[in-house]
């Protein structure tokens, strides 16, 4: 069932322009280093290793795409590549999904 989500995401070469959101089965628990994300469907635990990535992830659904979410969170554009990679990895672990 969850595998069906992958084709929606994988062909999109530019994560920055994608409308994204937190997977509805994922819970975020704040921690000093960032957050723990727990996926209730696949029971996987994922570490969000910086507080600002947590802010970005939480705000994804409030914005039309990742780029806008990064701007809204005051992330400098030279850091966007790093955020692109981090979010891509969260998409792979199904913490973040296309909406």
């Amino acid at each position, binding site marked *: 069932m969850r595998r069906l989500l992958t084709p929606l995401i994988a062909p999109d070469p530019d994560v920055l322009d994608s409308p994204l959101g937190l997977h509805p089965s994922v819970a975020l628990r704040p921690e000093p*280093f960032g957050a723990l994300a727990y996926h209730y469907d696949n029971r996987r*635990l994922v*570490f969000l290793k910086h507080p600002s990535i947590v802010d970005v992830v939480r705000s994804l659904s409030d914005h039309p795409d990742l780029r806008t979410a990064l701007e809204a969170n005051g992330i400098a554009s030279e850091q966007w590549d790093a955020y692109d990679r981090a979010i891509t990895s969260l998409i792979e672990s199904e913490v973040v999904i296309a909406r």
Partner: protein
Amino acid sequence: MTRLVEQMKSGLDAPICITWELTYACNLACVHCLSSSGRRDPRELSTAEAFGVIDELRSMQVFYVNIGGGEPMIRRDFFDIVDYATGSGVGVKFSTNGTFIDAARAKQLASMEYLDIQISIDGADEVTNDRVRGAGSFATARRAMEHLAAADFGEFKISVVITRDNVTQLDDLLALADGLGAQLRLTRLRPSGRGTDTWHELHPTLDQQRDLHRWLLAHGERVLTGDSFFHLNALGESLPGLNMCGAGRVVCLIDPVGDVYACPFVIHDEFLAGNVRDEGGFTRVWRSSDLFADLRGPQSAGACASCGAWDACQGGCMAAKFFTGLPLDGPDPECVGGDGEDALAAVTSVPRPSADHSSPQPVQVVLGQR
């Protein structure tokens, strides 16, 4: 990763996962039982108290608990407790010997959400398994696994404690799991509980540990280990996982009477942090106990400080050292550099587990008669 591991070592606001032994009652009498289970303790938590613990776990955002025992399904309120947890968003993985899983129970379990099951066996065949877990226990577990597979439960776990006898059966165990659509989970034998008396004969030899390390490197992606074998990292290439002792930092144990210990393998007064019945409950124990504060502080490498492998193995397992009478700041008894064997030779006295719930003799249980 290093910064993250450092953060974990200094402790989290709530555990990542908790082991919760629901009862000391058990119909088996496995020779390595880490909680010396057999007879129920009259002071075990009531249903209402168990619900109270779950309320705390939910508000701390503990995502899941590993429920065990004893045999947890012996508790008459077992399903009430599981339902209450999963209904609260606290996922459950429970360990069982399979005695109480018949076709109907398997169907019921398959219909439940946020639930995972771990069936324990300690060998790929009846002879090897039953030597540790008792006569008939392999057949019982096998039947439970077949019921789960037939009920389309999905990928349940088969949990194996690695011993000198079954470490040669890793391929067979993996094949057994594959054949049932299950995932194999391997954990390390600790000298805890009744294991205090049997560890010396049962733990894998040094050569076997090398074979195990190679096997885990080759199959690690498909096999769960609960980060059990990080002491093997001193052999070279690191196994997947956090490579740290999580006791009191990211994990802990709640025992059937509500006592909170640093980990499931150290049921001893020295590692008792408090009780969930105390003022402030589990939350306060986790966040404020002196013991946990100590475990989250910097740990000395002690006698291992001059060893080049310490970064890789972190000195191994606290419980393994404690119950073999070794100092906590020295080598693990199964140190792959061989230092543990030398240290063990010098041990004169060994701590005993704080309590023994063993039955006078194993109870014969027939399914449907509880």
